[in-house]
């Protein structure tokens, strides 16, 4: 690990992930989308061994596709979210696994509890962010979520994890 990583960086990275989680729980999808770089991806693979160029994913959005996704969720015609889900994103076990001047790789454990149509669902797994440092803050170049049930049978998964 690079010597540039300090305790202060760790806290600001953790704060960034917590802010991201709050945005999603407050359904501020467009603010959340603004965190992503133009060369970014939001990726929910189907399995740990997934190659997005060879295997289908649950989500593999580049910046343009993610713009469409968040805009659709912000509108009133996404029936998969009528009624809307109530979510609670819990981010923990935050670890910085790599850091250099260009990019910081952070893994964390994500537990999203969702309440919709009188039912609770739990989506959880390992989350990986690749972050770019900008102007004293961060932007997201990659958000990858490996759900523990990614190759199981899934229902309406229209929330942002």
């Amino acid at each position, binding site marked *: 690990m690079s010597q540039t990583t300090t305790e202060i960086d760790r806290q600001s990275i953790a704060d960034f992930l917590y802010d991201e989680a709050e945005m999603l729980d407050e359904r501020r999808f467009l603010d959340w989308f603004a965190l992503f770089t133009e060369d970014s991806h939001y990726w929910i693979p189907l399995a740990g061994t997934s190659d997005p160029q060879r295997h*289908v994913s649950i989500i593999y959005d580049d910046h343009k596709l993610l713009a469409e996704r968040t805009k659709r969720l912000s509108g009133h015609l996404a029936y998969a979210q009528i009624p809307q889900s109530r979510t609670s994103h819990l981010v923990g076990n935050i670890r910085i696994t790599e850091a250099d001047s260009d990019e910081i790789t952070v893994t964390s454990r994500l537990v999203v509890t969702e309440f919709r149509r009188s039912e609770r669902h739990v989506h959880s797994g390992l989350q990986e962010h690749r972050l770019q440092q900008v102007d004293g803050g961060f932007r997201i170049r990659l958000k990858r979520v490996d759900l523990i049930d990614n190759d199981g049978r899934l*229902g*309406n998964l229209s929330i942002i994890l």
Partner: protein
Amino acid sequence: MSRVEQGARSPYITDNWEVSGEIYRNPGVFAKEMRNIFGRSWVYVAHETEIPAGGDYKTAHIGLQPVIVSRDSDDGGIHVLFNRCRHRGSAVCQEESGNSNFFRCAYHGWTYGNDGRLIGVPFDDGYGESFDKSKMGLAHVARVASYRGFIFASLDPEITDLEEYLGNGRRYLDFIADLGGEAGIDLSARAQKLVYRGNWKLQIENTIDPYHFSFTHQSWLDILKERTGKSSPWVKNVRTNSEWRGIDLTGGHAVHEFGALGAERDTHGIAIGELIPFNLNIFPSLAFVGAHLRLVVPRSVRETWVYLYPVFPADADEATRDRILRDHETFYGPSGAGSSDDIEVGFDRVTNGLEADGSPKDWTLMARGLNREELDEETGMRIGRSSDEVPQRAYLRKWSEMMEADA
């Protein structure tokens, strides 16, 4: 209720194509479907490219029957075996797919070759002289056949041959199989798996339904408009293009063509994969839409699994694979704009509404386009307009016939 036309009687469907809500709700109907429909049809279980090498296997279902589909290590043939130990009934194969020359039951160590033969029984002195290992292998499903790489199995030993069963659906399967030219197609992209709390027939009825697209999927049309700067011609085509037509292929199969097969045409322009220029239902549970193969797996009267396998032309370059995968993922699958809205609108809300079994009008109406469908007397095929319910009636005709057939 009165009988269905053409002498196929059903207590559930009137001559005017009012369909009783019971067929989506009643566990007794579901149990009968498992015997009369899934027990007497050719049911798709695998594509040859999923089990290419000797020893390869995957698990599947024929109705509720758990089976293993394996490729023989010696002669390369396909076996479809009940996933059930002959001793005390344990499932012997625990993985969804893999490669193995044998399956060993963890309970008492009985071991079977991947062709089903019983090759090992620990402490076999516990069985007398009459114990014949050769008769104690994994039971084979009655019939197995492959058409152009699509492997089907049937629980019915008397069923007509697969090619005859596929009937007028064959030319569409040929079109799909030919997509990769000499190289063929492959299902190496793996599959998304959906589950919804509703009857399996709701998915069948939703697969060929251009009528709903501009309502349920308006948000998708809005996305397309943003991409291209102009409104999609989809609605105009559904309403006015006579080449967009729903066809009852007989045998329960149906197709919606977006232009005559093989003709030069624009794509249907909705960016859902754009590989297969039609929506095809092969009775009872197989479909092809966009760029994927779709398999409907009924679990109970109110639970259904749907597996979505993107299809690649086997010689596809990276750009083609990327387009197919991204177009598929954005519309289909648990987080796809189309599938998630279909689960909510076409399955969950319909299931909720159908709970009103006390309604004096406890039927759905499958009559759209009855007044204008064209019947080809010679072939029995019926052709309707794009938004008409010819495909739904196609499968319900076959469904009725089989449900009312005597044992």
